[in-house]
């Protein structure tokens, strides 16, 4: 299946019957309005061409000026951009809390930060990185890129998508405002009971944590469902399952993992907040509850969470490796199957977080085996990427450098993961800095390095300008060195017995020098992010213009302008190859006949990607924003009185009715 790309490579467009279903919309024997002939007065894109078509479509699909317009937008690119920027701001906030902790730990018996603030800091760090950065960043890129890469004009359910962004934003703001007011959570990012329960954590701190979960998970599930539906139903005609870009596959599998994993943490946090606020006894052993029930529910989400963070990164890596290796992916099918296998296996590992809770031996052995098993699909992916680069003609630009950094760091983290899968070793180093070192190698290696690569890679698409390559190389050097100097010594401090989540230690323990080294590394790593931020800001203003396809990449987002116009494509592309822009270098095959004056896009079939319907998609609306505000009032109010669920639901119902009720002028929209 895989082969080198030559310049005269041109894949023939199949006959129309393989590109369109030709079926009626109404059920058999029914005279349906769906099959009514199109309104002859409505302008269609087979009647206009060129700049006039672009301008008219941009008007139809555009976002209004002003604050109301900005809050009403349903453009996946605008929402996606906000999602990405917000998630990266949370990455920086999480990073700053880490820097504060590293300063405190630099030397023994430091008095810079007291134990109470330190508890809040490590909780905010973990919570922010996992829930406000780790999950949303992958979805944020999906919101922006998936519709472009599958060749459509907007995400499925664009109002739901807008709503989810605001809910996520309000949840993140809520917990950070609470932290600023010294009521930030202080019970660790997983908020174990009984510590987080009503007896040991009176006050509101743990409630803020639990309710932040509700916010972010509602948002996360809503986006995941929009992404799944976009990939299933809105693909460009001709994009059969085996022509879906690997990035889109990764986001699809990721969305499925989100749909099935996030309900577990919502259940856990809902039970926790009920125990705290209305006196239920889910986790109270005195009344028949059980603390380990919380751990099971939490980790049934918590382990897939690792893959929710990692899977989008594999998508970024696949896209970048293919473009810079200048050949199609080696082992496309094994790569896709590995993604799916990883998605399934990620649900079978959760108990390895609980090896020290006194499990039956059979259970421990089973989860050891499954933990080692998941290394197989991940290994396959790594080998496929290496083979792609090996057989290609790699161009070592900044995105590829960060991908190579990812290979080294992630594999090192994977190796310490194999060690931790073994119960005896895990019992020994449980809750020490060895574990901290392991998961930062996995998470920063597996997500942050690919993320930076992705920002360098897609920045020209997002902004129309290139980032500085020279600063990019310095950035990579500082980040790679800083990261390893910060986190490698933690393996050793952990083996020397230093526990996690302690705000200080005694000089006699002998951990001082290694901790100082880690703090120096953290400072270098921090500097690399300052450079990154500088590169983003200065390139957005003054970077060289990019043009639609600066890397000469093969996937459809590069067929749109940089940055894309509101309609993404003037006409919906027709796909004949996995890398459509490499297959069609002279002219892009397209579908015509869609409305120019109304928001229409192609709905296609799941497996063969045959065009089936020309369906209209929602206009902008302020109601999703209002619904998100009402949701925030309900969620925050319910931390103070359960009655908020009753009175808080009234504005929410009103907002939802406004959302779904058609506007007088616009008929067929939802």
């Amino acid at each position, binding site marked *: 299946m895989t082969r080198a790309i030559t310049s005269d490579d041109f894949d023939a467009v199949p006959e*129309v019957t393989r590109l369109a279903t030709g079926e*009626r919309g*109404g*059920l058999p024997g029914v*005279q*349906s*309005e*769906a*099959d009514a002939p*199109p309104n002859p007065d409505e302008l269609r894109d*087979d009647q206009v061409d060129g700049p006039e078509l672009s301008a008219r479509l941009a008007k139809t699909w555009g976002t209004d000026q002003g604050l109301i317009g900005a809050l009403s937008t349903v453009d996946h690119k605008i929402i996606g951009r906000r999602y990405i920027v917000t998630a990266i701001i949370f990455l920086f906030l999480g990073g700053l809390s880490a820097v504060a902790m590293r300063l405190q730990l630099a030397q023994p018996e430091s008095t810079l930060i007291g134990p109470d603030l330190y508890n809040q800091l490590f909780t905010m760090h973990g919570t922010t990185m996992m829930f406000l950065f780790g999950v949303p960043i992958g979805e944020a890129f999906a919101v922006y890129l998936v519709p472009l890469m599958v060749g459509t004009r907007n995400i*499925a359910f664009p109002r*739901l998508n807008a709503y989810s962004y605001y809910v996520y934003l309000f949840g993140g703001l809520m917990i950070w405002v609470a932290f600023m007011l010294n009521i930030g959570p202080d019970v660790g990012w997983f908020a174990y009971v009984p510590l987080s329960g009503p007896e040991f954590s009176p006050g509101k701190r743990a409630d803020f944590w639990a309710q932040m979960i509700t916010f972010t998970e509602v948002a996360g599930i809503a986006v*995941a*469902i*929009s992404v799944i*539906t976009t990939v299933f*139903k809105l693909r460009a005609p001709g994009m059969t399952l085996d022509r879906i870009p690997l990035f889109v596959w990764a986001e699809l599998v990721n969305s499925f993992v989100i*749909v099935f994993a*996030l*309900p*577990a943490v919502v*259940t856990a946090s809902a*039970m926790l907040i*009920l125990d705290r606020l*209305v006196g*239920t*006894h*889910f986790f109270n052993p005195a009344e*028949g*509850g*059980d603390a380990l*029930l919380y751990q099971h529910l939490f980790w049934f989400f918590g382990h897939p969470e690792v893959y929710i963070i990692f899977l989008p990164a594999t998508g970024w890596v696949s896209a970048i490796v293919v473009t810079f290796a200048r050949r199609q992916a080696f082992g496309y099918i094994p790569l896709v199957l590995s993604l799916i296998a990883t998605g399934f296996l990620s649900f079978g590992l959760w108990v390895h977080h609980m090896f020290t809770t006194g499990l039956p031996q059979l259970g421990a052995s089973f989860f050891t085996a499954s933990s080692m098993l998941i290394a197989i699909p991940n290994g396959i992916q790594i080998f496929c990427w290496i083979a792609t680069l090996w057989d290609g003609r790699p161009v070592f630009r900044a995105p590829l450098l960060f991908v190579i950094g990812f290979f080294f760091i992630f594999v090192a983290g994977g190796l310490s993961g194999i060690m931790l899968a073994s119960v005896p070793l895990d019992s020994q180093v449980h809750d020490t800095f060895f574990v901290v070192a392991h998961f930062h190698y996995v998470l920063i290696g597996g997500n942050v390095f690919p993320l930076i690569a992705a920002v360098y890679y897609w920045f020209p698409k997002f902004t129309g300008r290139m980032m500085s390559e020279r600063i990019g190389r310095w950035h990579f050097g500082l980040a790679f060195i800083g990261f390893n100097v910060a986190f490698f010594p933690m393996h050793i401090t952990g083996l020397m017995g230093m526990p996690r989540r302690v705000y200080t230690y005694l000089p006699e323990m002998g951990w001082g020098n290694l901790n100082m080294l880690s703090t120096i590394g953290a400072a270098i790593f921090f500097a690399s992010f300052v450079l990154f931020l500088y590169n983003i800001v200065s390139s957005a203003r003054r970077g*060289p*213009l*990019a*043009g*639609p*396809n600066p*890397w*000469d990449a093969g996937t459809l987002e590069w067929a749109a302008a940089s940055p894309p116009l509101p309609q993404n494509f*003037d*006409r919906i592309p027709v796909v004949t190859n996995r890398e459509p822009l490499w297959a069609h*270098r002279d*002219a*892009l*095959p*397209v*579908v*015509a*006949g*869609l409305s120019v004056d109304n928001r229409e896009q*192609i*709905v296609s079939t799941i497996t063969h990607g045959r065009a089936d*319907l*020309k*369906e209209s998609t929602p206009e902008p609306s302020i109601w999703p924003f209002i619904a998100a505000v009402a949701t925030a009032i309900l969620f925050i109010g319910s931390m103070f009185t359960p009655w908020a669920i009753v009175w808080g639901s009234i504005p929410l119902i009103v907002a939802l009715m406004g959302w779904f009720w058609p506007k007088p002028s616009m*008929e*067929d929209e*939802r």
Partner: protein
Amino acid sequence: MTAGPSKPPAGGAMLPHSIVLNARQMPSYAYGHRSPIWWGTLGFAAAEGMGFALAIGAYFYLVFINGNWPLSAPAPDLFWSSLFTLVMLASLWPNHMAKRNGGREDLAKSRRDLVIMSVIGLVLLGLRIMELGSLHVRWDQNAYGSILWFLLGLHTLHLVTDIGDTIVLTALMFTRHGHGKRFSDIGDNAFYWYFVVASWAPIYLLVYWFPRWW
């Protein structure tokens, strides 16, 4: 680099189009799995179904931890819950009719079916309130009471959501918006109701019958 007469920046020019397919005559909506909304509904049913499955798992976990069950309370009464279950099962028929008449784009019958479904929903809500009064345990009495109320609360949330959705759709069908794609929406609304009924069956058995068999 890509071909093209004028080469602006490094990234080349926009590709010209060659039209290979025309969508002019394609239908503007369809029914069931051909419609994106159907997949969205399925997605939410999957996520919420996972929530039900986890809550049921938590119930069995607590049974396993405690051994004796139900904890210091008699099993909940069968009368209201069984009546609720019967009405739910009976609602499958008008629900099916709503879906069918929606598919036929028959406005008068669709209106009738939706009114029936709205009334049934409100009756069920009334029965649910009676049902909650005959559980013999409060949520704050012990873990058994907590998980019982949790399961019923979760299901009530879905019940209320679907009733709200049905009533709004019913109102919509009595306005001038009641045509075209709305008929497809009736089918998706009916589809969600099937989920609400299907998720009730295991909960009913678990909450009302399991404690009698244990």
